[in-house]
């Protein structure tokens, strides 16, 4: 019988709650999260468990950070780059975030970081697009216009990767503040 299974992630920045519920459902069927694998998760077949998963973002998490979770009944499952952390606990354990100000901060931190990554590509996309518009003037060779257009496209494609999560966090914060 197969012991290990890889499943794709729907994107943690977009579907965090859904993803955690999906993992909990797998755990009930005995497929327990072992670690992140590429753009998905590696699950291992064990006995069925009634657990919940929670995700936190914390850069440079230290021993104390993990000790707090442990003390509250949340065991550390896996992390990416000591920044994205997944914890699991028996269903019904009290949540890792218990108030709104700190929950807002979680997404503020991520938004800021994505914003920082997105900004240079946002600027270059705009600049190349403007250069492309200006180069449609008659005295500019057509090849230069195409060149700028190409650079603009490349910038835009790169921009999507931090840009979409940025918008997703922005939306999440907007919803949180409206509650």
């Amino acid at each position, binding site marked *: 019988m197969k012991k290990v299974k890889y499943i794709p992630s729907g994107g943690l920045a977009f579907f965090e709650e859904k993803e955690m519920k999906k993992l909990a459902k797998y755990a009930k069927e005995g497929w327990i999260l072992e670690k992140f694998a590429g753009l998905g998760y590696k699950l291992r077949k064990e006995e069925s468990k009634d657990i919940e998963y929670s995700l936190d973002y914390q850069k440079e998490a230290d*021993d104390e950070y993990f000790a*707090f979770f442990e003390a509250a009944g949340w065991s550390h499952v896996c992390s990416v780059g000591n920044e994205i952390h997944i914890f699991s606990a028996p269903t019904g354990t009290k949540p*890792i975030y*218990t108030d709104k*100000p700190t929950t807002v901060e*979680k997404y503020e931190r991520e938004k800021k970081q994505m914003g920082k990554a997105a900004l240079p590509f946002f600027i270059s996309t705009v600049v190349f697009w403007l250069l492309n518009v200006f180069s449609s003037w008659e005295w500019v060779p057509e090849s230069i216009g195409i060149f700028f257009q190409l650079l603009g496209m490349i910038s835009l494609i790169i921009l999507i990767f931090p840009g979409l999560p940025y918008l997703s966090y922005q939306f999440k914060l907007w919803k949180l503040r409206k509650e």
Partner: protein
Amino acid sequence: MGRNVSLEMGELTDTAYYILLSLVDAKHGYLIMQTIEEMTEQRFSIGPASMYTTIKKLLAAELIQLFDDHDPKRKTYIATEKGIDLLKNEVKRRREMVSHAEEVFKKRGEQLI
């Protein structure tokens, strides 16, 4: 931006209020959680992520300080003088808020239990 807004305004979130209150005497993280749960008869509890974030915030605002970090897993903290002052002001502010409500209900002849 965002990070210390409520602290700069001199107001404490409920989480920060209880953490600061339990750090009038030095304690480590887990004991802070336990103390608060006992104090409030389990009515108020703080999740580990909220706890960690709030402690970092209180440290940055110099309302608490490290007391002992021999064991990195069990760092102990204690409220600073600034922290105690803010806490006292906060208690006063909240007491006033409660007494305003009591007056209003008293006038209406309703009793608050």
